[in-house]
């Protein structure tokens, strides 16, 4: 059951972030300030991919809650970082982002740090 929860959490997080990134890039640069925040709230309701991303975020959150109920926190936190690798690879393949050696190296350093945090 533990690995099922980890898989669901990882896939749901990655899907949520990919959908958010895709939709927000289509929407264009947002302005900083109260008006920008209001526009963002309206955008969530209007754009179905953003709504779907919020649903994925909820699945990820509840999977994490179920995971920490049955598995140690020292396992759950680094396990949640697994989405980091999946998302970086998917961003390169699906969103056509250019992930050079410096960005990949930086992401790897961050992943090591997160894994160390959870120990």
């Amino acid at each position, binding site marked *: 059951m533990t690995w099922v929860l980890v898989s669901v959490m990882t896939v749901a997080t990655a899907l949520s*972030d990919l959908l958010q990134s895709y939709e927000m890039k*289509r929407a264009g640069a947002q302005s900083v300030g109260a008006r920008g*925040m209001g526009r963002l709230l309206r955008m969530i309701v209007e754009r179905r991919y953003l709504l779907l991303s919020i649903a994925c975020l909820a699945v990820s959150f509840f999977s994490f809650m179920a995971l920490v109920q049955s598995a140690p926190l020292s396992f759950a936190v680094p396990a949640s970082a697994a989405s980091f690798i999946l998302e970086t690879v998917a961003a390169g393949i699906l969103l056509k982002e250019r992930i050079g050696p*410096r960005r990949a190296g930086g992401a790897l350093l961050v992943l090591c740090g*997160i894994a160390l945090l959870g120990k």
Partner: protein
Amino acid sequence: MGTSLTVRTYSWLTLFLALRGGGNLCLAWGTRRLPETLAANPLVYLRSLFDPFVATGVILLIVALLARLALLSVADLSFVLPMTAIGYLVAALLGRVILHEAVSPQRWLAVILIFAGAALVSSTPHDTTGEPEKP
């Protein structure tokens, strides 16, 4: 990438990190003051929202989600992921300074790794994809 877009990227990033740090701090502070333990019963979670610190924490985290969405409008996902991990550093510092939590040397090492990774990623272009849709 233009200077104004770089400023906007780092403005959203700073706002997101401040909101998430503040939100987590308020949640931690608020939940520790609660008279009952959070359990599987959803009513306990609903009651906890009446605590001013918990409520403030939830509101700050919702606004943080909006700031992250805006950040994704100006930067790549593969850029945003490691940069927002700076939040772990903010959480460790806030926990140490304000909540007086013990932070082990291993945890500080983790924080340094995250910071080094984020610094490396910050030296790459924020946006490597195409133009937004026409309105």
